């Protein structure tokens, strides 16, 4: 019994794969069908995951005796007053907790990981190295960090006019080269993904000899 369902599953997956790839050529009914199937399944999937979230983050705690968890559950339902004509603002209590906890938890970590630690790492560079390419590299490294930061200075327009502008332009050049590298670097990973799907179509669906 399982084999029929698996074989049928492979056919469904293959047709949906071709439907998605067909969009790259033209938008067509087959893609529109796959898109609406995908959104439909994803809606169902997200709804089930949300119920799981309400259960694991809320109801399980409540049943485990942590009575305080009734507060977020009430606020959760209060959020649906958003559709109410006059009491719409009641939704803000739930959102204010999400925003307060979410924003604070993330931005406070940025101070170390993406600010102080990055400056410390730059300050820790020992420029002179045995290998001349590395020494030159360190000089270029420092210049790139400094000019890129210089490029982003917004409220001192005089730094971006006249001869001072060359520093900002240098920053832009370094970023351009970095973007060229990062762009080309991802080509192989994207091709690897497509190879995976082509292997599925060629060997699992069409059953060509390996």
């Amino acid at each position, binding site marked *: 019994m399982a084999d029929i369902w698996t074989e049928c599953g492979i056919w469904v997956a293959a047709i949906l794969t071709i439907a998605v790839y067909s969009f790259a050529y033209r938008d067509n009914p087959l893609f529109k069908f796959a898109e609406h199937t995908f959104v439909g399944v994803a809606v169902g999937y997200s709804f089930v995951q949300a119920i799981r979230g309400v259960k694991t983050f809320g109801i399980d705690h409540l049943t485990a005796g942590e009575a305080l968890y009734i507060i977020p559950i009430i606020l959760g339902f209060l959020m649906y007053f958003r559709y109410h004509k006059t009491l719409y603002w009641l939704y803000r209590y739930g959102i204010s907790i999400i925003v307060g906890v979410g924003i604070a938890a993330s931005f406070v970590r940025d101070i170390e990981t993406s600010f102080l630690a990055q400056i410390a790492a730059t300050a820790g560079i020992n420029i002179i190295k045995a290998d001349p390419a590395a020494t030159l590299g360190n000089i270029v490294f420092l210049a790139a960090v400094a000019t890129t930061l210089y490029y982003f200075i917004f409220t001192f327009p005089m730094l971006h006019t006249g001869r001072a502008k060359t520093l900002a332009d240098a920053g832009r050049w370094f970023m351009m080269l970095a973007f060229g590298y990062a762009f080309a670097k991802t080509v192989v990973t994207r091709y690897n993904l497509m*190879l995976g799907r*082509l292997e599925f179509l060629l060997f699992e669906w069409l059953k060509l000899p390996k």
Partner: protein
Amino acid sequence: MAKSPLEYIESLPREIIYTILIICLAVPLVKPLGLPVPISSRVKEWHQYVEGLPDGAYVLVSVDYGVGSLPALEPFMVATLHDLFERNVKVVIMTLYSDGPICYESLITKVNPDAYGKQYGVDYVFLGYIPGGETAMKAVAENLHAAVPTDYYGTPLNQIPMLKDISGASDFAMIISVTPSGDVAQGWIRQWVTPYGITYMSCVLAMMMPTMEPYYPAQVKALTDAGRAGEYEYLIGKPGSGIRKLDAFSVAHIMLIIAIIIANIAYFALKAQKKGGA
């Protein structure tokens, strides 16, 4: 007005580009072209260790991956077994994963030992899934017959010709493990390398290399990532699914580089034409 050929090439419609891409990726998948492939020093080292095995040496090969990571890890294991079966060595295969036997079946059909004239029970044997992780490694090392009473097919070990006088780790020249798990890769060091000093070769996922590098080369004689299977296949002349992907990368990248060159030539020709014409 219809586009001149130069304008057509310079702004090639996407349908043409995408069709060329699919052809460049699909053709090498079906028929490997065997394009030149760079061999990294790590893969060369792995091969040299296998070549250096004396005749009749015993090698423990542990298929330490499950069905989930099979696509990523199997090609390297297949190439390793091809390399081992080229030589006159005794290969004892086992697995620490409950779904390891499924991987063994898929593996052994691809390697096809009969082609090398290898006989089950004489040249190679499969002990099946041994539960317990590091405790299994330790048990096999200390007393093979006590730890594994029968092989995967149920024949008692003492009736298997090649395992008669094999008691444990000290009778093995080498242990090879291919695994996505850091604990397993490091477990073999603790149970086989430190106590018995056996030559240990480990193949892991690329993202785990940083965690394994500290052990190389002191405890792990040869360490590489499974993505290099194509190189190993090219080195031992056994094209498989690893080299097919590398071929597809080569063809697709070369197509892209040529396309960019053509586009730029057409661009400059157009500019010259306009300047000339204006």
